[in-house]
């Protein structure tokens, strides 16, 4: 099997698993317990917090552990929205291609009377700091913009956006779920006020994430109960998960340059190979993208059938087609960069892993080429494109 869906989730690293086991088998105490045995867990928790903070250039008390990226996004946005509202600020700036954890939270806030500006994404999958500067108003409570896009892998100019927000004194949150452990992050240097990340995207366990919030920000609790996480996130801490997260993040952050050096040539080889398929195009900028991300649209075919046939060939991938999401519309990310519906249905995301080699890439190119050719052969839409009854969107 070739697992090319590392943007969906990753295999856990041995280091992360080993970091977790003692906290399941041996030190299973509750960190809130007074006795020594519980305090062992508490010490582990605080050491994990310090290690995570160090990876991000943050301070330990700025780190809150959550159940994952979605919870962190929800908490960050709701906190800043409500804090802004108290000062009469009810405007939020984001982008059209955020993760649904952000977009759906913003939808909910709109019902509470907030006004949301979603910045248009350029056809290369990037937004500019100037767009953010132009959109900021007197009543802007928050700017929330993802670090790297989960579908097309484009890396936003986060430091520049951070500088704009700092200058205009507007809080800046970034959903760094795809970036953490893959790109260098320094929250202080980048003027990031809040940041979300999720362990399972960098070879840590599922169900655990982090919300970084700059000191001075008073987080609004989404889960009410005990006083864990300084009263900002009730519920007994997921100590094994947190230990796995910290170990995986440290390992990934120590490996960022090597990861980029290994994967970038493989990514570019895959892009070049898929580009040879006629009437196909890369989605998102070719260089300002995650080293692991390749996302293509192929004219005349539909993504779900492409995925099923790739699965038959032992390749795990994903698509932004409507059929794979269970919704009626194809990926909002692909629509946001201007791909027409009919092309967005024929999309394929391949997200590479560190275990891949040039041979793996050759296999993927051959398999995708075969499947696209086959599906076009039975597609009346493709026939119409070939015979000129419909117009091609892409150049050959």
């Amino acid at each position, binding site marked *: 099997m070739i697992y090319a869906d590392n943007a969906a989730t990753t295999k856990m690293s041995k280091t992360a698993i080993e970091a977790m086991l003692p906290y399941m088998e041996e030190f299973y105490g509750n960190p809130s317990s007074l006795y020594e045995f519980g305090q062992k867990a508490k010490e582990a928790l605080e050491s994990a917090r310090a290690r995570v903070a160090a990876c991000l250039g943050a301070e330990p008390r700025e780190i809150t552990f959550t159940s994952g990226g979605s919870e962190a996004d929800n908490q960050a946005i709701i906190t800043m929205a409500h804090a802004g509202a108290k000062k009469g600020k009810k405007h939020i700036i984001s982008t059209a291609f955020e993760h649904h954890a952000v977009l759906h939270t913003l939808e909910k806030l709109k019902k509470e009377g907030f006004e949301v500006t979603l910045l248009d994404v350029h056809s290369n999958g990037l937004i500019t700091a100037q767009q953010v500067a132009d959109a900021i108003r007197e009543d802007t409570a928050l700017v929330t913009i993802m670090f790297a896009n989960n579908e097309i892998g484009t890396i936003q100019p986060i430091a520049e956006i951070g500088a704009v927000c700092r200058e205009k004194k507007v809080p800046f949150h970034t959903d760094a779920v795809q970036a953490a452990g893959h790109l260098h992050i320094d929250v202080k240097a980048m003027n990031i006020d809040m940041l979300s990340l999720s362990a399972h995207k960098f070879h840590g366990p599922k169900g655990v994430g982090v919300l970084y919030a700059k000191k001075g920000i008073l987080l609004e609790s989404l889960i009410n109960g005990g006083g864990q996480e300084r009263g900002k996130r009730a519920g007994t801490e997921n100590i094994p998960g947190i230990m796995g997260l910290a170990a995986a993040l440290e390992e990934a952050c120590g490996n960022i340059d090597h990861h980029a050096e290994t994967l970038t040539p493989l990514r570019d080889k895959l892009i070049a190979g898929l580009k040879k398929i006629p009437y196909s195009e890369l989605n998102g900028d070719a260089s300002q993208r995650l080293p692991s991300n390749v996302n293509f649209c192929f004219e*005349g*075919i*539909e*993504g*779900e*059938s492409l995925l*099923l*046939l790739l699965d*038959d060939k032992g390749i795990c991938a994903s698509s932004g*087609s*409507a*059929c*794979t999401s*269970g919704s*009626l519309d*194809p990926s909002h990310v692909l629509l946001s960069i201007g791909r*027409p*519906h*009919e092309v967005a*249905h024929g999309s394929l995301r391949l997200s590479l892993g560190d275990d891949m080699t040039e041979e793996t890439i050759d296999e993927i190119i051959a398999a995708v080429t075969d499947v696209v050719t086959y599906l076009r052969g*039975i*597609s*009346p*839409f*493709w*026939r119409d494109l070939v015979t000129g009854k*419909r117009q091609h969107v892409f150049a050959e």
Partner: protein
Amino acid sequence: MALYSDKVMDHFRNPRNVGVIEDANGVGEVGNPKCGDIMKIYLKIQDDTIADVKFETFGCGSAIASSSMATELIKGQPLSEALKLTNQAVTEALDGLPAHKIHCSVLAEEAIKKAVKDYYDRSGIAYDPADFPVFEDCDHCGE
């Protein structure tokens, strides 16, 4: 649990009656690219019987499987029987489809009816238009 039944996967992986009939005397196409599915049915009708049928489909796994199964169900059948084919029959023959994929079996039924209507129109055969509801390009996005 897998997304699709074994029957669906079989018809998706090894679709029956794929292709074009060059001298078809009835052709029906439904769906549109914006929605992500198009089905095209080619019929060769002789002596009021479906002598041959072929299809081309742009769409998901269940769209391809539904087209394949629908063509199998009508091949060699009298025209009157072919017209009775319902999307439920296609779905049942495939051992079921996920709820959000039932739409694919509807497309298959509509494509066949549209091809038969085309045959009647071409051949100057009178029919009751009520038997052929207006085929929307797409029943779910309104395009």
